[in-house]
């Protein structure tokens, strides 16, 4: 009896769970389906769910019409470039704060985090003017520099929390064995730090890929990443939702996969260790 009741309960929860998941996921699912429709089917009423003529022509047209791959490259260069540069600056800092903390470390960390709380619109005007005067508007370098600074606080925080977890005992043991500082870093610390470094890169690439304030305001065409390119679909000329869907599907697919892989780090990275 109790067994049957709990089976019924599991069945109900399974049903409700899948229903909730379907509802939340539906916009993405619908976008992917629409990307394989003809423009006529994409507009049809009642909507065609699966019984339509599947086509991949939208994907071909997206590339032909707009040099889509150039924008993909911009996204890759900007997301990875900004994260890698900020890693180079952040790793030594996080390292020092985790392994040789002073009485000022806590304050420094909190101050760094506070720079992230400044709304970007508060500095839009000067950044725009500086970039205009330096010829950095609509350049990848300009965006990489800017996003790198924006990433820096989160990157340092994440690295700090990861480095903090490296057991000091192992370090002391290897020092007792007379290991030199270079070998200490290469053979003892690096292997333990790499997973944290990889997670930090992953999460920040995702954030930089989707950044849509500076990319929209500081690029027009040449350096426009996918966020800005997709925005150009907002002024409709005729029916092209299937193409919008195809371009969007391609733009989010790689990052969605990365995001799914990094779901554990997401919580940790975005709450600065406040929730584990």
């Amino acid at each position, binding site marked *: 009896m109790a067994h049957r009741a709990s089976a019924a309960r599991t069945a109900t*929860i*399974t049903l409700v769970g899948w229903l909730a*998941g379907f509802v939340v996921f539906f*916009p993405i699912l619908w976008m992917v389906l629409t990307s394989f429709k003809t423009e006529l089917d994409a507009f049809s009423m*009642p909507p065609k769910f699966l019984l339509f003529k599947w086509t991949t022509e939208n994907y071909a047209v997206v590339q032909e019409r707009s040099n889509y791959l150039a924008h993909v490259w911009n996204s890759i260069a900007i997301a990875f470039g900004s994260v890698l540069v900020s890693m180079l600056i952040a790793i030594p800092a996080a390292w020092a704060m985790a392994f040789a903390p002073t009485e000022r470390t806590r304050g420094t960390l909190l101050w760094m985090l506070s720079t992230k709380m400044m709304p970007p619109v*508060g500095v839009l005007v*000067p950044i725009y003017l500086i970039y205009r005067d330096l010829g950095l508007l609509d350049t990848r370098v300009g965006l990489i520099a800017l996003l790198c600074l924006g990433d820096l606080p989160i990157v340092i925080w994440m690295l700090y929390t990861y480095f903090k977890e490296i057991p000091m005992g192992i370090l002391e043991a290897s020092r007792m064995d007379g290991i030199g500082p270079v070998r200490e870093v290469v053979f003892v610390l690096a292997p333990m730090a790499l997973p944290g470094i990889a997670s930090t890169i992953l999460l920040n690439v995702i954030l930089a890929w989707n950044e849509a304030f500076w990319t929209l305001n500081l690029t027009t065409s040449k350096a426009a990443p996918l966020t800005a390119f997709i925005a150009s679909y907002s002024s409709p000329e005729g029916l092209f939702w299937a193409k919008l869907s195809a371009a969007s599907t391609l733009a989010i697919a790689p990052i969605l996969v990365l995001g799914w892989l990094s779901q554990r780090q997401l919580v940790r990275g975005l709450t600065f260790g406040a929730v584990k």
Partner: protein
Amino acid sequence: MATQQSRALGRILVAPSVALLFLWMIVPLGMTIYFSTLRYQLLNPGTERFIGVENYTYFLTDPAFIKSLSNTLTLVGSVLAITVVTGVLLALLLDQAFVGRSVVRLMVIAPFFVMPTVSALVWKNLLMHPVSGVFAWVARSLGFTPIDWFARLPMLSVILIVSWQWLPFATLILLTALQSLDTDQKEAAEMDGTGPLPFFFYIVLAHLARPITVVILIQTIFLLSVFAEIFVTTGGGPGLATTNLAFLIYGQALLQYDVGGASAGGIVAVVLANIVAIFLVRLIGKNLDR
């Protein structure tokens, strides 16, 4: 603990980050403050002159400012309410064992990874379109008249889109927190015969108080700066219906080329964000002490 030498090394290693972040904070912010005291039109270069606080009085008494401030608060408040309440429910659901739970979890967190311009345009054109959108079809099938979302309920439309984007974040954090709820505590409550409702309010919600605070803090900081979703859907309209503070300042700077006015607005936005940040950091501090 740290030796003299390692302290010096530490300082050298931390210095580049501190210096860069300091410059990043102080230079543009200083320039914004400076510009905010000037009459400075981008289209009339060379005519800049000092006008004191005139930009501020102009900006703060502009009806558009009051409207955009109330829009900002409506947007932030509504999205927080929707995502926290729905997030708690979804987290409770995903905390149960059921068939295919890990797949459902992936489905639920997916929207977080969709870039804002994509989610906004997909919602606007594929779901909320009054003629061919899925919502219109659902409404018609149920015998209602389809709603022209962005014309009739523009603010609600933006709120729905932004809530969809942030729901995964709230859910995932609350779920992580729920999973750390002590099984002993659960069992003890069960043995005491605690009913489901008291159990939810006194044990689950009490346990979630801190993660909920964290969700509110972090989301507020991002939600105060919502921009792309408005940029690609309504352009702040119709009228000023969906113009939030970020969008108002953007328009003043890059559409009307009023550098002075936009800078004053920017400073107002920074001050507001800081009030929220201080308030929430305190809240979190109290929560931490408990």
